[in-house]
């Protein structure tokens, strides 16, 4: 493992190239799997009123005299 950014970027590029070069049938199977995973994640995190994160509004009050 390297902490050199150039090496890291080169590794990432190689990984993406390798994925792109896979046989088409294999890449389409990956799409099937990606969609299933995406749907599973969406199902689990479907927005509901009780689950919404809200930030309390800032309080602006006049300075005490």
């Amino acid at each position, binding site marked *: 493992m390297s902490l050199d950014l150039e090496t890291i970027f080169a590794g990432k590029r190689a990984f993406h190239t390798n994925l792109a070069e896979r046989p088409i049938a294999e890449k389409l199977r990956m799409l099937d799997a*990606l969609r299933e995973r*995406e749907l599973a994640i969406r199902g689990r995190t479907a927005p509901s009123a009780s689950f919404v994160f809200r930030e309390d509004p800032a309080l602006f009050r006049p300075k005490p005299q």
Partner: protein
Amino acid sequence: MRIQEVIRTINQMQADGVIERYAIGGAVGATFYLEPVATLDVDIFITFNAEAGRLLVSPQPIFDYLIARGGVMEGEHVVIAGWPVQFLPPHSPLVEEALNEAVTQDVDGIPARVFSAEHLAAIALQTGRAKDKARLLQFVESGKLSAERFQAIIKRHHLVAAWDKFETQFLTP
């Protein structure tokens, strides 16, 4: 859930004369050239078989054909083999040309008509959403584009200014 099943069904629909011609576009089309990127639907561009005596073409025969074979309507999509499939008529001269010049690729023995890499890149440039720009960048970096062919397409479809802007924004150090 299998895209290959979708392709087989579309081929059969073409063989049965419901559609004249088709080509896969969008993220699934791009996957034929690039790394796979998650997508929720399949975009199929088609030319309709106009019914005799009718001036307006309707997608209804497609829906009827697919529903009779187990497809399910879901909004504007027909769900085939678990995938929502959207059928799109060519909406611009560029897409029309892409459909005419689509290439046949082999998927484990199943023929699939797909937009060429250059047309997919030009359509991404024309559409211009953030995800389209990301896709165009992927095409450029992948080295899968024929520069000559791509330049000819963007010239023909008046996209040179859009390309110059994209180049300045993303490809100029």
